[in-house]
């Protein structure tokens, strides 16, 4: 069930009609039913997988907590991780490994006949397995007590606003909210609606409008001029941001209306002044997950300089593969690993925070840094968007010929400016719900909200017969 579909509007209307009238336990039971209905709308069989994952991690969580010895704890941890990674490998990576092995064997003049699984990837599998693994590792590390109520835990794993594309929640953050009574206030409702409007604007008005431009250009990069290819780069850079951060905003908004606060996933990433800062602002729930459960587990920066760089590369390589079972994702991750290592090597990877420049030289320097970082990220997105490394190379090659730069589409720049302006206001106000917070002049906020509504409606009408799924659903 897509957020940008009519069936979801019907679904959420029914949920919001019933949910506030129930008591806490009833609310959780009702939420659980809604979660499974929402997820089963794609394919009811997905629910079996979700339930199995929930059951296994619920039991192993208890077992780890009750284990007396470190050996036993580790054993149960491995059971859980093996199960979760087994799911991921079976559904997401099996064919990739088989294809890669076959290609390798073929390079030695062998003709392998390796098995291929004809299965579809369940939506959101990567998200909820990571969320479950995070929960288990936190229990193993003694940072979290296991949930004793199965319904509450099942709601935690399957919470429909963030089930299929995050944010990847932490047990320590969401579980206490599930256990305790929610306050459904008018303020939360308005702030939630604010986020939903913002999310739909980013998704429908910006990302879906840029989608056909991106599809056309990336479909035939070999016949496009450099101007068109640059258009494609910018369009995809803002399409993926609008799409994913739009989803997150809608998810956070709906959760807020239901009385939950989800963690932030984006914080004006394209205004980052360096690559380290970018990863603190982009897909925050995944990057912090990778940092806490993978990078730190590998040794982090505690084992010397070379090992730190290697850990960064391994983490980003796996982060790339998390996005999809294909080499271009892996290389995309490795490239980001290299950027992070280089930044750390030469600039010390200093903690950078975005503050408005007070002096002209500072302002100019920051602007240059932002533009540089933005282009570094944007150019690396080419690998992410193309379906193969060879196509990405063709794209890059033609991109830097700088032929017919007049083909650069002004409409894409306009869409980019809209998103950047929204991020600018967010940074200025320090709030994601600035439309309904007490920032600036009230009438301006009303005007912006109404304008966003009109634009979103116009775009929804224009895209009515071609609903575009969220990009991150495939991961």
């Amino acid at each position: 069930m897509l957020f940008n579909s009519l069936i979801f509007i019907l679904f959420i209307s029914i949920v919001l009609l019933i949910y506030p009238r129930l008591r806490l336990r009833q609310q959780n039971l009702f939420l659980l039913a809604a979660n499974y209905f929402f997820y089963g709308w794609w394919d009811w069989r997905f629910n079996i997988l979700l339930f199995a994952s929930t059951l296994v991690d619920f039991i192993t969580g208890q077992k780890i907590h009750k284990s007396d010895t470190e050996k036993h704890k580790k054993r149960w941890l491995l059971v859980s991780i093996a199960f979760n990674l087994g799911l991921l490998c079976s559904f997401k990576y099996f064919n990739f490994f088989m294809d890669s092995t076959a290609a390798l064997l073929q390079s030695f003049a062998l003709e392998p006949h390796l098995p291929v699984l004809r299965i579809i990837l369940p939506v959101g599998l990567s998200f909820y397995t990571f969320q479950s693994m995070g929960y288990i590792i936190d229990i193993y590390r003694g940072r979290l007590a296991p949930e004793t109520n199965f319904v509450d835990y099942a709601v935690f794993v399957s919470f429909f606003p963030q089930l299929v594309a995050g944010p990847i929640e932490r047990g320590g953050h969401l579980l206490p909210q599930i256990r305790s009574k929610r306050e459904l206030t008018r303020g939360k409702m308005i702030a939630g609606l604010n986020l939903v409007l913002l999310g739909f604007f980013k998704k429908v008005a910006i990302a879906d409008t840029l989608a056909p431009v991106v599809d056309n250009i990336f479909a035939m990069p070999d016949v496009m001029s450099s101007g068109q290819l640059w258009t494609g780069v910018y369009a995809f850079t803002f399409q993926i941001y609008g799409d994913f951060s739009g989803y997150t905003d809608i998810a956070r908004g709906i959760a807020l209306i239901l009385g939950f606060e989800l963690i932030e996933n984006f914080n004006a990433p394209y205004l980052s002044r360096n690559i380290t800062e970018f990863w603190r602002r982009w897909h925050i729930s995944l990057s912090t997950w990778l940092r806490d459960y993978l990078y730190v587990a590998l040794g982090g920066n505690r084992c010397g300089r070379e090992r730190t760089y290697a850990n960064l590369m391994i983490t980003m390589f796996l982060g790339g593969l998390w996005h999809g079972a294909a080499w271009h994702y892996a290389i995309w991750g490795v490239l980001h690993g290299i950027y992070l290592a280089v930044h750390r090597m030469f600039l010390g990877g200093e903690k950078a925070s975005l503050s408005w420049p007070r002096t002209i030289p500072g302002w100019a320097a920051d602007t240059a840094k932002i533009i540089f970082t933005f282009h570094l990220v944007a150019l690396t997105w080419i690998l992410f968007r193309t379906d193969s490394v060879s196509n990405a190379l063709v794209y890059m090659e033609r991109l830097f010929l700088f032929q017919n730069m007049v083909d650069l589409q002004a409409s894409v720049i306009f869409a980019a400016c809209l998103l950047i302006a929204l991020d600018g206001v967010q940074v200025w106000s320090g709030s994601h719900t600035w439309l309904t917070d007490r920032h600036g002049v009230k009438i301006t906020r009303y005007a912006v909200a109404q304008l966003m509504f009109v634009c979103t409606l116009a775009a929804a009408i224009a895209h009515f017969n071609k609903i575009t799924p969220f990009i991150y659903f495939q991961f």
Partner: protein
Amino acid sequence: MFGNSVWVKRLLLFAILTPLSLLGGELFTRILLPQNVDPKMNIFRADPVVGYIYEPYAEKREKGREYNVLYQINSIGLRDREYSGKEKGLVRFLLLGDSFSVSHGLAIEESLSRQLEGALQAIAGSDKIRAKIEVVNAAAGGYSPYNYWKAYRRWADVFNPDVVVVGLSPDDHDCDNEYLSYYIEEGETLAVYQDGKGSRKLWGNDLLRLRKWLSWNSELYILLRNFLYYNDIVGTVSLWLDTHQDIHYGQLEPYLVPQTEKMSKAWEKTFSYLRSLHDETAADGVVLVVLPIPLKLEISSQEFERELKAGGRTPEEMDIDQPLNGISAFCSAEAIAVLDPRPALRKRHAEMPCYFVYDGHWNAEGIRSVAAHLAEQWRNLGLPPWQNSSRQKQGRDAPTR
């Protein structure tokens, strides 16, 4: 509610902000979701014989999403070049029709009259027929069969044609102009009225003016209007109207089997005008040829499916050949030649679009294909100048204004 000042303030705020946000939405739509606004044909003037014609010497740039051409009207009110008297050896065609025949959205060099003239002249040359061929474009946007008949009467003495070609669209029934008079204000055709005066009622004339103005100027309005038209919402409403009120099938009505009573009457009327036209041309010794103009849905299966969806209809309820069969049967009975451009258009459209994407009229490629095919058919049928030209009336002076 109005006793509460907070609500009054909110309403006031809403009233102020709504136009502003609509303006913003318009800007957003123009930049990111551009739409094809309706052509603004403000170059007409009333005419006592035809109803209306183009304003002599008028110039208007016709802008759309897919075209930007200059309409230049000649000294007598035709979208064509200037003509002089008819010389010896000249075979003159008079092209009558609506926006398809006038070649909406295309430069005059790409128009049907010019392309047909060129194609006929080329074939005549290859057949060593020493005749000069002229095709006069006497078509105008919005004309109906009534206007075709009257336009012949209007221009016959002016041009003294040898052949009259009538472009007949299946949707001509949409505007039967016999009993209507155009209300023309400052050169803009605003509406047609039964009484020809134009009422000033809010929900009549003014609303129509507003809608027309919006369709010329607002891409946001066009977006909404097209959405309502091309989606199931309208299809459902159309079905409801079908069963409860007046019949509304959009473009599908001429193809519906069995033919609706309204459509039967419309064809009856169309054929009565054609019969009148044929009587007059025959009396003048002029050859009449009918060119049935296929709508895009007759050529493109995708367009046909889209229309079916919009109209809430199934293919089984349709006969795509029904209009042509009706025209052929009538013309056969009246001994009028019929030229069918559909085979050539279907073949070409499969390789290259022959219609504008958003507009629905023929594009330059469509016109070229039609003209080449017609010229071939023309020769095969032995029409003038291939026919023994005993009926050709050469040498008469053709006055121009």
